[in-house]
């Protein structure tokens, strides 16, 4: 009993190292819910589940999905970023204005990404170096960034982008939307980073006890800074896709998006208190919410129903999960 039985040591993939016991309950629950939903949908209206239609219905989910990745990282460290929606607006408007000013469209994209990064980095500076709580910081920049977007564009729609640019948002490669491809790649990278790298591991540690993590020689401040900057980058990319698809940049794009993103992430099983969460869960969360919204809208044709259902879904899903998992020790 004094030294650990080898038996236990043999089960040591990352998840085991963390919770112990079967760690995938949440993902299972989500997957089952998703399957159930699609079954019902397919029964009520077979057309809904046709791959071709599904693919077209998915056109506007990719930006949200993309944002959910850095958000997962951030929430795992116990932080939060409420300003993503506004960063989309800001980088989108910069994109539009610079294009209006006659810049080469790809330069505009670069500029937009630069803007997003800067915005995210500013959040990062306040969170990690001024050490203000991320909720406060991003609450402030939530209005500040959208405000700047409104200010520099005075609320005008900016459009008339070239077709080859719109392709980013609307086009597809072998039937698969470009946005989808971008997301899948990003998701895989994010998943591996979180799952198997020292960086990923330190995110979990930070989420539980930042000080002790810092005492272990991990640059917690720098890491946080990077995360928030990344969130900004993702927002900028999302903005480019969004603008490309609607062919219009405007200070109101991405409004309320932060809530959708956070909903997806927490539905995906990432603990808002930090320390727990996986990309797989987030992806399932995004899918479940997307399909629910689409089907309710498809079948009932009554918009107010959507928030009602999604809200209930969020609570119920997490409730089921907490019923399945044993009482924690904290």
């Amino acid at each position: 009993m004094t030294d650990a039985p080898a038996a236990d040591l043999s089960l040591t993939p990352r998840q085991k190292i963390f919770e112990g016991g079967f760690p995938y309950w949440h993902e299972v629950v989500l997957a089952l819910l998703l399957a159930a939903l699609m079954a019902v949908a397919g029964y009520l209206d077979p057309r809904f589940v046709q791959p071709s239609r599904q693919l077209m219905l998915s056109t506007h989910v990719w930006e949200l999905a993309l944002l959910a990745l850095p958000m997962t990282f951030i929430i795992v460290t116990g932080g939060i970023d409420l300003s993503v929606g506004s960063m989309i607006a800001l980088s989108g408007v910069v994109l539009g204005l610079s294009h209006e000013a006659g810049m080469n469209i790809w330069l505009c994209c670069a500029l937009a990404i630069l803007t997003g990064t800067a915005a995210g980095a500013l959040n990062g500076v306040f969170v990690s170096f001024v050490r203000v709580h991320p909720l406060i910081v991003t609450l402030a920049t939530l209005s500040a960034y959208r405000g700047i977007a409104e200010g520099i564009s005075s609320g005008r729609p900016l459009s008339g982008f070239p077709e080859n640019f719109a392709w980013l948002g609307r086009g597809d490669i072998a039937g698969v939307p470009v946005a989808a491809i971008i997301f899948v790649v990003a998701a895989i990278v994010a998943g591996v980073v979180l799952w198997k790298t020292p960086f990923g591991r330190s995110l979990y540690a930070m989420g539980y006890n930042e000080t002790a993590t810092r005492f272990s020689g991990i640059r917690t401040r720098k890491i946080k800074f990077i995360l928030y900057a990344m969130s900004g980058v993702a927002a900028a990319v999302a903005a480019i896709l969004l603008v490309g698809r609607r062919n219009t940049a405007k200070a109101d794009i991405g409004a309320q998006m932060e809530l959708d993103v956070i909903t997806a992430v927490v539905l995906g099983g990432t603990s808002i208190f930090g320390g727990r969460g996986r990309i797989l869960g987030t992806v399932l969360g995004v899918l479940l919410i997307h399909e629910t919204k689409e089907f309710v809208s498809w079948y009932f044709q009554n918009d107010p129903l959507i928030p009602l259902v999604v809200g209930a879904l969020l609570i119920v899903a997490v409730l089921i999960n907490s019923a399945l998992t044993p009482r924690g020790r904290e």
Partner: protein
Amino acid sequence: KKQSTSSSAGKKITVAMLPKKKGIPYFTTCAAGAEEAAKELGNVELIYDGPIDGSPEKAASMIEKWMLQGVDVIAVSPNDPKVLGPAMKKAQDSGIKVITWDADGDPGTRSFFVNQATAQDIGFALVDALAADIATAAGKTAPPDAEGEVAIVTATLTAANQNAWMEHMKARLASNYPKLKLVEVKPCNEDQKLAFQVTQDLMNAYPNLKGVFAISSAAFPGSAEAIKQAGKGGKVQVTGLSTPNEMKKYVEEGTVKSVILWNTNDLGYLTIQTANALANGTLKPGDTKLTAGRLGEKEVRGDNVLLGKILVFTKENIGQFNF
């Protein structure tokens, strides 16, 4: 897949009707008219749905949804023509008939516009009405003599329609009413309470404010209430667009002198009539008139189906309307 739209009269058709914002009386009354038309026609199945938050992004994806469901006609009231444009075009290309109502989109993205009023008509009507009210309140006879400070309370800073109206309002003010000075434009974010507070502040900050344009469904009652509670009814004029029922009491007690609108019920009705005619081929490009059920003959000018003039509800006539 989607049933072909090559159709003979009486053939069953599905019309999807998209308001800018679901859940506000203006569009609810339009929907009532649409329902009426659908019943009359019998062969029309009406889908009425739209984003409750008025988000153009959501509206666009609804159009895409209907495209996938293979409806026959999509009638769009575009909250933001630029954002909805691509989706409408896509639907058209897939063989669905797309028309606009209440507000127009780019001509390339729809076949007809059921036109109750253009942005210009609305902008001008608002300015003329307020100017007249200010003038009469100041005991002047000719509206152009109206003078003083005026302010606008709009929906949101990015609301495409309101921004379009404001363009024309500013132009009209400059050209016809040189003595009216526009001092502020404030958003109320579709929130009556905010409109109420903003109007209070405007009246305090600009003691000789003479009039307020409350150009969003939420702004109008909010501003009117602020003026009333400040005891400035009759001293500070307010006008805007609203269905008569919502503003009746303010008109009757005199806080509001004129309310701009058209018969929303008829607008919805005419929209469905147009959609139906378009679907079964009785309405073709180049036609000059359209027989629209109880509305009788309606003029078609170019690709605009005209509903008729803008109405101005006043103490005298508002009692006669109930919608």
